[in-house]
């Protein structure tokens, strides 16, 4: 594994985007940053800026308004990038499935690499999902 690929695995910077979730998963993502889980051990940092991000953590089902935003953000993340859909809603649409304004899961708009199911997702599961995403990133 080359230096750059090794660094990729060691330094995943995250963009967290909330489509139209109930905020349950968002709170769990923030919980990952707390001393208890401390994802910064793995070099993970929540960037809040697509131009600096490597991993998109997406929560909530895609609706007609956020689909456009999600696509724009995805295009602004420089390659190599991976997308993790966090939570059942982000993966499939969940309880909002077939709602009048909901398109469904994130994969309706952008390609998703890792699905993390759960309602809401536990922080361990999120970290596990990101680690899976990193394995994929290492191969890119």
């Amino acid at each position, binding site marked *: 594994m080359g*230096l*750059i*690929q*090794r*660094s*990729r695995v*060691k*330094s995943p*910077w995250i963009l967290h985007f909330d489509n139209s979730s109930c905020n349950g998963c968002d709170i769990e993502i923030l919980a990952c*940053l707390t*001393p208890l889980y*401390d994802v*910064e*051990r*793995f*070099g993970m*940092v*929540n*960037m*809040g*800026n697509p*131009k*600096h991000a*490597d991993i998109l953590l997406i929560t909530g089902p895609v609706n007609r308004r956020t689909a456009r935003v999600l696509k724009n953000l995805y295009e*602004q993340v*420089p*390659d*190599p990038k991976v997308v993790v859909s966090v939570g059942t809603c982000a993966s499939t649409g969940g309880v909002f499935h077939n709602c009048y304004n909901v398109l469904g899961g994130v994969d309706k708009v952008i390609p998703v690499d890792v699905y993390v199911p759960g309602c809401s997702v536990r922080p361990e599961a999120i970290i596990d999902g990101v680690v899976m995403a990193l394995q994929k990133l290492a191969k890119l």
Partner: protein
Amino acid sequence: MMIKQFLFVLLILVGAPIVGGLLFGIDRKITARMQGRYGPPFIQPFYDFFKLLGKEHIAVSRMQFVWIYGYLVFMIASLVFLVMKSDFLLLVFLLGFAGVCLVLGGFSTKSPYAHFGANRELMQILAYEPVLLLLAIAIYAQNGSFLISEIFRQDKPLLFTLWPLFLAVLYVLTIKMRKSPFDISTCHHGHQEIVKGVTTEYSGPYFALYHLAEWYEIILLLGIISLFWTNPLWVGILIALAAFLLELFIDNITARMTVGWMVRLSWSVGLILGIINIAYIYYTKGVS
């Protein structure tokens, strides 16, 4: 002699980013520990750097890349000036050019966030530049020369007479290290600026260049602080490292303040410290 000096400069140019990167790693580790976290490995900044190098090039304007190169090169040039023990006043002006490059890099995109950050960065320059210039004048007042080599020839450390300016320079260090309460234009990991301030539109390899410039910058700043005690130099370096740790502590116990507050504080407390210092030297030593 020339070759020896050249090799020394080369050594510093290669060594500075390594030590600077490590200092940032230590920064993150200690910050994490202060917050009750485990923290990333010490060499985390290098992982970040190489990862960024391997990312795709994306651009919002050509000029922003030109300015980030300018930022890096002028930062390195300032460091070379310090290592060559050249003119301190000119060093401050070169450092100013580096700051201006960063500001213009933010301005050269039509991004509201970068624009915000650039305006704030400009206010930061307004806050720290006069203190550094006053330091240059105070060094002249004390030593009769603007050359850094002259500081090394003195037996008595500058800290004894320039301690008010030393306090003001600590304040500058907080601004330049982008630590709370002055992480106003952009900031480091874990914090959230308005998106990412002046660096919002940099990405991939060019963002890596920004980090590289910051590593040089931290070495430069700590070098300037160690000038306060040059005989023997290791005391100065220890003082600089202590100042560095102090900044981490300040970062973790304070909240971010506003731009106006920063400029007002700098132009009142910082300048008064500097002016009192210069006035004191003027009245004790005179000019002729």
